[in-house]
């Protein structure tokens, strides 16, 4: 972490909690920790600023008839709408904005998608609705992630939480093995 702080000294630092987000016009280092929640980092190369949110649930309409303004970063779809709007109001051209999607951890439960998977799908669909380009994503799996985003460069550093092993995939193979073992008992 010290290495990252030294990379851009004197930078403002923000820790993003669940259901928080925003556009950062001043260079800012934004940290957050994700489990099944999803973060989307937006970066406008032309404007030189970016935004990010940390949302908990996939779609606002499934939970609230009328979305309260204070809850817009609680839901993935509403958070994407909010940040797309905020970037546009600041003069960013959405067609050149780069988006990176993170989080959505969680095992399948009896073959059904968990909230993590639903969150990621909601993010991809909302981004596609705004014709925003997803340049990178790092989602799924069973382990949470720590994330650091630099709003003025668009750089994102990610680290899995927990033990150093298994980066990445696939819970799927492990799940099958587990089910098979369970069935054999």
């Amino acid at each position, binding site marked *: *972490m010290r290495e990252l702080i030294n990379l851009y000294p004197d930078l403002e630092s923000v820790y993003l909690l669940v259901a928080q987000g925003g556009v950062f016009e001043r260079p800012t280092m934004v940290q957050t*920790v994700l489990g099944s929640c999803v973060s989307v980092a937006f970066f406008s190369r032309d404007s030189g600023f970016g935004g990010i949110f940390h949302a908990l649930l996939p779609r606002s309409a499934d939970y609230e008839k009328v979305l309260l303004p204070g809850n817009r970063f609680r839901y993935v779809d509403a958070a994407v709408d909010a940040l797309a709007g905020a970037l546009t109001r600041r003069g960013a051209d959405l067609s050149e904005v780069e988006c990176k999607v993170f989080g959505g951890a969680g095992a399948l439960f009896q073959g059904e998608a968990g909230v993590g998977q639903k969150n990621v799908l909601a993010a991809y*669909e909302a981004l596609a609705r705004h014709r925003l380009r*997803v340049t*990178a994503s790092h989602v799924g799996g069973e382990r949470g992630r720590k994330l650091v985003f630099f709003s003025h460069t668009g750089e994102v550093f990610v680290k899995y939480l927990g033990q150093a092993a298994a*980066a990445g995939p696939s*819970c799927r193979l492990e799940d099958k093995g587990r089910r098979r073992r369970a069935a054999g008992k």
Partner: protein
Amino acid sequence: MPRILIVDDSRYQRHLVEKTLADVGCCEQAEDGAQAVRLFQQALHRGEPYDLVIMDILMPTMDGHRALAWMRRMEEQAGVLRPTRVIMLSSLDDPQNMMQAQFEEGAGAYLTKPFDPADMLAALRALEFAKNPLSADEPCANS
């Protein structure tokens, strides 16, 4: 040094990726999914499986999804405990392809073309193929 398989039907793309990964590991290339599956199987049988696969989706003969599904099946049959890590690298950025790769086929990351080498490096850091400044520090607090 990690063994890396780069799968893409474009020679230019394979060259770009290999150049980006020059310091990360020893790269081999495949021109399509079918060739990739053959190389993957041979490596598995030799007991020297690839550590990382960079996989395109749209390719002749066999696409990236099918190739990856074959690879996962082979790993399962061979009783591999730690599946090979995969970064999908495609011009497709629609929800269906991104979901399928990461939630059904176990890709650890998904990048879209044209890719920024910095994004590739970030994915490699996250998958523990490159030094990660986040891991060199205090352990993360779970919250």
